[in-house]
């Protein structure tokens, strides 16, 4: 045994202790309690698939109103379903487009209400949402189609779960100015699914 060989191995062994200690669940948990340790983590891929009315894009005319006068309302019930393998929550954004979007928006004349678990009653330009829990109440639509409407994450919906039906109600404000006569806007809404941990 010579004096020169062993110490080289010992230096490396001491350095290698850093690995053991760095990865040890006891060491990390003891000194980094504010972090999430990866101990026992299962890494798994899934799919995220939010569907409304069993589709990934919905073209609807039920919410449309022709010939609307102040006080007119339309309503439609949508079914929200998680068709993927990962749990999700959702938010709702939307607003007005089209040539006269700014005119309607500046008057605050088109107003949206969204309620979960509500039903549609009435017909045509006098249809309304009845019952349920209000997620959004009489919010004026703006001329930005990406504006936040329901910003609080709804759900979570487990994989394969059907959410409470969402009733959208659009009202043409009773105080709409007469300058809006004959004007037209389109409304676009987006239900944004986000995976949950």
């Amino acid at each position: 045994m010579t004096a020169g060989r062993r110490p080289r191995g010992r230096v490396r062994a001491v350095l290698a202790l850093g690995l053991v200690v760095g990865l040890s669940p006891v060491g990390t948990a003891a000194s980094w309690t504010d972090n999430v340790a990866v101990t026992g983590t299962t890494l798994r891929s899934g799919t995220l698939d939010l569907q409304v009315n069993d589709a990934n894009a919905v073209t609807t005319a039920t919410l449309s109103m022709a010939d609307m006068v102040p006080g007119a309302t339309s309503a439609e019930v949508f079914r929200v379903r998680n068709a993927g393998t990962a749990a999700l929550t959702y938010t709702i954004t939307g607003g007005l487009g089209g040539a006269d979007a700014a005119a309607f928006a500046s008057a605050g004349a088109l107003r949206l209400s969204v309620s979960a678990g509500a039903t549609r009653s009435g017909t045509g330009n006098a249809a309304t949402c009845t019952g349920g829990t209000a997620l959004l109440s009489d919010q004026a639509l703006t001329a930005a189609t990406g504006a936040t409407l329901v910003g609080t994450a709804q759900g979570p919906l487990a994989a394969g779960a059907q959410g409470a039906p969402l009733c959208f109600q659009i009202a043409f404000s009773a105080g709409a100015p007469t300058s809006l006569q004959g004007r037209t806007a389109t409304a676009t809404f987006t239900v944004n699914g986000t995976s949950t941990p």
Partner: protein
Amino acid sequence: MTDPRRGQDGARHGVLDGTLAVLREVALTAGAVAGVACLALALLATTAGVRALTFTSGSMAPTIRTGDLAITRPVAADRLAVGDVVSVIDPRGVRITHRVVGIELDHRLWLKGDANAAADALPYAADRVDRVVFAVPAGGRVLARLTGPTGTLLLGAYLAFLLWVLRPRARRAGPVALLVVGLALGGAPSPERTLAAWTDPVRLDSTTLAASTVPKPEITGCTGAVGSVTVTWSAVASPYPFTYRAVVTETGQVLTVTGTGGTRSARYPTAQLGINTTHTVAITAVLPTTPSWVSAPANQTVRIGLLGLAPACGAAG
């Protein structure tokens, strides 16, 4: 310092000793490199806020896949650029690592996963965020294994091996080892899980909202009599129950509207009016619930004549 038995043992177990020696060298060198990396990360974690993040979902694929390990360092929000991959804590307290696709004037960040069709629903507000410096493919998966039950067993065995190498021979090695162990315990970085959350937007389209134009009434008749004129018009065709207003434009006098259904009329008493003048009777349709919503006026001109006794109808339009 020579051992008299060493030569005999070496001769008997030369091949085995050689293999074990190589394994020992590899284990020590690889362990030392990984250990230094761990200690360096620990040092950087405490001094520069560097973090190791394990990706638990795949919305940043193919740039960063599930199970990859990303090394991040904190950057002030105003120094970020579109295209940077950053890690933020969302309002639910979940760590999200996505690419910057837009920056608001107030430095709120719009993020989007590379594999997502759309950006995250809401912008994130933060003064400092963790920017991904580089990613190690499958690094997180390896770390997850090493810190799982099997990994703990392997690490335990490796620790035993290291302790055997370090078995007390010289007095000064003990304190050095304890110092290193202490340092590592205090500063070892623990990879944090990060969710590269998926998003899936569903658009609700084709809602057209067209405001009504209140139709202008059509004047169907005008009859002059002694001392008065009667203007008649047809009600507008509409699903809404309009009412009608008849006003003398020049004087502002409001006339009484009579009739229901398809035909309405208003009588304009002219007997006490002046000489040879022309007035206009304006008829408008009004929405009863919102009286400011009125139609364009339908006008009927009336020639008053001498003392208003024999008025006559003029042009209508």
